[in-house]
């Protein structure tokens, strides 16, 4: 069982977490006016980097959504940070 760090609850079992997607994927600027290619990329395409990656996860029991940096080959976790706190700064 792998343990992941929830910024709010601390270290918890992997089964409590949900992978939401890669981090740093901003919505296309301009909303409906943005190009189809920009929306297609945003909605469906991923970087699929191998090694150290930054991702968005959520912790189901507390609802915290956070950014986690980890290695997707070794499964080592480097850091996790609440998105809520980032916004408050």
């Amino acid at each position: 069982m792998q343990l992941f760090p929830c910024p709010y609850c601390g270290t918890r079992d992997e089964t409590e977490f949900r992978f939401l997607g890669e981090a740093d994927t901003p919505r296309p600027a301009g909303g409906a006016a943005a190009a189809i290619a920009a929306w297609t990329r945003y909605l469906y395409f991923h970087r699929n980097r191998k090694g150290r990656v930054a991702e968005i996860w959520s912790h189901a029991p507390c609802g915290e959504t956070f950014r986690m940096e980890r290695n997707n080959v070794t499964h080592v976790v480097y850091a996790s940070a609440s998105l809520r706190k980032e916004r408050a700064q």
Partner: protein
Amino acid sequence: MPKRYSALSLAVEGLRGHTGWAPAWRRPRPQPAYDAVIIGGGGHGLAAAYYLAKLHGIRRVAVLERGWLGGGNTGRNTTVVRSNYFYPESVALYDLALRLYEGLSRDLNYNIMLSQRGIINVAHSDAEMEICARLANAMQINGVDAELFGPEQVRRVAPALNFDPQARYPVFGGVWHARGGTARHDGVAWGYARAADALGVDVIQNCAVEDFLIEGGVCKGVVTAEGTIRAERVGLAAASHSATLAAKVGFELPTRVYTLQAMVSEPVKPVLDTVVLTLGTGTYVSQSDKGEFVFGGGLDRITSFAQRGNPPVHEFIVAGLLDAFPGFGQLKLMRQWAGIVDVVPDSSPLIGPSPVPGLFLNCGWGTGGFKAIPAGGWLLAHLLAKGEHHPISRPFDLDRFARGALIDEAAGSGIAH
């Protein structure tokens, strides 16, 4: 030219102490240039090379494999072949694969041990039976064999299942797909490799592709540890590493890479002569010729390039097996392993030209690549030979995401992959 395999050659070699067998394929090192280079020596890449040489007469072909043949997902799957899909586009694709599988041992002169023992998808409620009826109807309309089974018919094909009405996942019936079954996965890779080699294809192992050769925006070859190899056309059939390689030339793929686990029990005497998939847990199982139960289930929901599974999903799959077959509870688990699969949002593959001219894709098979090997190879060969789609691969082009023309088999056939 390798010796033709037959009952006679086996008998003769048996009498001669098996001293006359030659290696099934050569071990060439790469030439400086080919008509076509295929990245990935799994089933799809090897099949593409074979069909290029056989059907299109293009024999200056190299398959580049960074490890050993079939050492990725081709050798890690649970060997199931089937064609029980919902949408006409998918049926055209997977039924082409199954039809090619049906003639493959003879075509390749290599026994892939195809066993069309039938597959039963087991439903556990009235609602699931309605979904099964929908799937069976869609399959029949598309010309694929399918039969809606009640509980007594399920009992006939899989008597070891748990038929207790109080079971957590009671048996209400299911969809029977008689042409589905299993094939020897290594045999498929080896058979294609041997047949392609015999037609002049260079099957090159331990040769990792590090980058692409791009001239004027067009892919003109690949860069490997053994130097640059020029090619008129390049096929990318590297499963989860297709996206990693695509990043080298600046495009992304709509895939996510997950771990998919499989495992086998110790061998016992024959008790299950079909493939059983339970819709409630997603666990599926068949019994190998050696007597082991080969089984697996859903994906590990953590994106990963590690070729091993995590314990929670492992436990869920085993629990699902024991719900369906309580009698298997005394068996020991012998081995557990995992492959990394590239999953597309609509659970359908990516076949077609890439954004870089000269480079063609065959990836995104997710958890269902093995059953599709002959069709994936056949269609990639067509793309590499003609430079354009065959009508069967057209719907699976990358452009379907911009057009919103997804082929959502996860929703359509209810098969999670």
